[in-house]
């Protein structure tokens, strides 16, 4: 069986060896949902980058005659197609502008906790000394605080700005990465190929970064994308408590929170930003699922053969 497998893979790879970007795109195209997800995320990123620049003024212009304006009135200006909020501000424009803060907070918090958490986890997992004992305790301490309580305390003392919210959210999410990384490192450290590297004379950084990290990276990326959704929602609950982003700054979470009193009369106030959150996290999950397969040489054939039989 493995023989046929070898020849199949070889036949596909050898002609011309296309560049890494080309192969990357080809693999992405093989997974339709992931392609849609990538396009949607590209759109969100564009909104986040250019939205505030272009639509800042429109999005904050009050229009009391258009309070809670009904969506789908296509006769109006395009920014009002999704309706207006409680102050008559166009929802579509606000969602586009809010993408910027939302993405900044979520990306910042996830990236920071991923970086800090997994570095600490690598050290904790690989060192057999005291450090390996101490670091997991640090995670235990953080975990023993309810994360929202921690956020309330910190944000009570600090100014509730984007930077500080990122800081708070990052701290509360560090243990997730730390524990996962440590557990994986403890297992992979004992694998034969790590021992083979030691026999070869590889240095500790080389073993960690060349041999251990690539094996655990897919797990971390998967957790990070799931966490992305969690962080967006956590940020909205902070906003809901009034210690998150302060108006007139706006995020999707804040928009959901602000629409809550009107849910019975004007559902669209919370619905559209909520939909944005859902679609973004869904896209991230689809993309991470694709990435896990595309990055794993033993799984990649699933995409190369073009079939979606893996279920």
């Amino acid at each position, binding site marked *: 069986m*493995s023989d046929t497998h070898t020849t199949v*893979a*070889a036949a596909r790879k050898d002609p011309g060896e296309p560049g890494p970007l080309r192969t990357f795109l080809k693999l992405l195209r093989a997974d339709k949902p992931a392609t849609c997800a990538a396009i949607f995320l590209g759109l969100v990123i564009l909104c986040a980058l250019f939205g505030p620049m272009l639509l800042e003024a429109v999005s904050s212009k009050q229009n009391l005659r258009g309070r809670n304006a009904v969506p789908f009135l296509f006769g109006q200006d395009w920014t009002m197609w999704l309706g207006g909020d409680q102050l008559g501000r166009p929802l579509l424009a606000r969602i586009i502008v809010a993408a910027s803060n939302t993405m900044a907070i979520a990306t910042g918090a996830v990236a920071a906790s991923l970086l800090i958490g997994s570095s600490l986890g690598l050290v904790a997992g690989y060192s057999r000394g005291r450090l390996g004992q101490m670091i997991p305790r640090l995670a235990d301490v953080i975990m023993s605080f309810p994360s929202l309580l921690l956020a309330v305390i910190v944000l009570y003392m600090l100014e509730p700005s984007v930077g500080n919210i990122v800081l708070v959210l990052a701290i509360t999410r560090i243990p997730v990465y730390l524990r996962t990384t440590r557990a994986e490192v403890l297992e992979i450290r004992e694998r034969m*190929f790590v021992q083979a590297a*030691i026999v*070869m004379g590889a240095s500790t950084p080389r073993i960690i970064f060349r041999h251990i990290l690539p094996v655990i990276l897919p797990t971390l990326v998967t957790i990070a994308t799931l966490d992305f959704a969690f962080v967006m929602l956590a940020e909205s609950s902070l906003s809901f408590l009034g210690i998150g982003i302060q108006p007139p700054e706006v995020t999707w979470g804040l928009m959901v929170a602000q629409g809550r009193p009107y849910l019975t009369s004007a559902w669209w106030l919370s619905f559209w930003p909520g939909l944005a959150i859902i679609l973004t996290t869904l896209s991230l999950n689809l993309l991470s699922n694709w990435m896990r397969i595309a990055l794993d040489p033993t799984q990649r054939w699933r995409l190369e053969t073009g079939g979606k039989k*893996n279920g």
Partner: protein
Amino acid sequence: MADPLLEVRNLSVTFDTARGPVHAVKHVSWAVNRGDVLAILGESGSGKSVSSSAVLDLIDMPPGRIDSGEILFEGRNILEMSAAERRGLNGKRIAMIFQDPLSHLNPVYRVGWQIEETMAIHGTARAEAKAETLRLLAKVGIPDPQAAAEKYPHQFSGGQRQRLMIAMALALKPDVLIADEPTTALDVTVQAQILGLLEELQKETGMALVIITHDLGVVAEIAHRVVVMSKGEIVEAGTAAEVYRNPQHPYTKRLIGAAPGKGEIHPDELDTPPILALQNVSKQYGAFTALHGISYELREGETLAIVGESGSGKSTTARLLLRLEEASGGRALYQGRDLFAMSPKELHGLRRDIQMVFQDPTQSLNPRMTVFQLVSEGWAIHPGIVEKSRWKARVAELLREVGLSEEHMHRHPHQFSGGQRQRIAIARALALEPRIIVCDEAVSALDVQVQAQVIELLDRLKAAHGLSYIFIAHDLPVVRDFADRVIVMQGGRIVEQGGVRQIFDAPREEYTRNLLAASLDPDPEIQARRRAERLERQKLAGEAA
């Protein structure tokens, strides 16, 4: 002639995979009668286990499906039976034992309870089941059945666990016992005991025994008839002696030709100066002593085999030598310097001189690196061996040398077969231009034919590169063809050492003799003779005691 007890007729099984259907077995037919011992012999991937899995309804469907054929048990086609009827047969009339008993015993229940459970499922009263369990445990040779029934699986050794599995399988006095590689994970002496037990029980109960194995020795030891499988098809069938003496199919001929222990023995011990000397090396794990101060020398250009059963400390010596673990005492002198006392910095320089090839190449090659990255990694760690501009050319050269081709460079390990992977591991070791290579069970995980090829490769490379090998193995026949000198270890001590001819032809120690007697010869006639001798010795020992 009456209908056979169990007959597989024209069975074809296909598995649907993402890469298209795989025909696991094609038109396979075999039959066993009461009192018969049938061996299904094949290498990995030959489909030797599939037909028996079909008998016990163990094939996952989908992705598997049975395309054609029937399985007759006492004349009835069990493939047409209802699930409930088949459950009634499984365990009660047809039982199975597996290769790895630890994973088939539930770790959270006492073993006595687990054996009772098999009987209780099929309607035996608990009290009766309990008494029967104790009787069974005594029958399969577990000492002190009363106490043993109260223990958990992890408290038994590998051989004892296999005995427990046999007890469980025999609980309901099945008519057919299917044993899937029952002794592959066991030491040779234990293997001989378990096969002896199976044979004895089979004679006593008159059940039919189907043994699935890759080992010609097992066939020779126990089987009356043998079915040889290759690539999902039966290529040859007949009595064990007939097939061995007069194989018809080229595949069978190759298989028998590749059996180790038949080739030229290396003539004499080399008389070259020692390259490595271990002096009084010991290792303790807490209160347990794994090595009791052993000393030996490796001479330049020789192949030194270290053989022993599991727990003999043979792998520990290798791990200490490569500083994967720290020794508790003793010295290892290489070029006049003590390897154990070196600082990490000094050691780094010497690493490239002593390389290792591990048992399982699937695990020792990083699955995320390409062959090129794997082989060239050592040059990044030890600059100065090969210039970076020449890496590609040199990797291609090494791959050709170990019998692969340079197109393989950009593939990942999972795209190769087991034997090819071990070749990659050897190329990786060679890349550092070492003087000593430690092979820790380097061919144990491979099929017989591949084993022979890899050993031939190692032998050729030794001459070409002036290497010395420390070859750790549990398999004596492999060592016989390949080694210059042999060290026999037991319980962390060296029992005997000497030239390969002396160890095999005139062993001095009782332990070595037992080890040799327990290893199975592929020739049924020789094996029958050995068995007779063994029984004789046992009888003598019994009379003496």
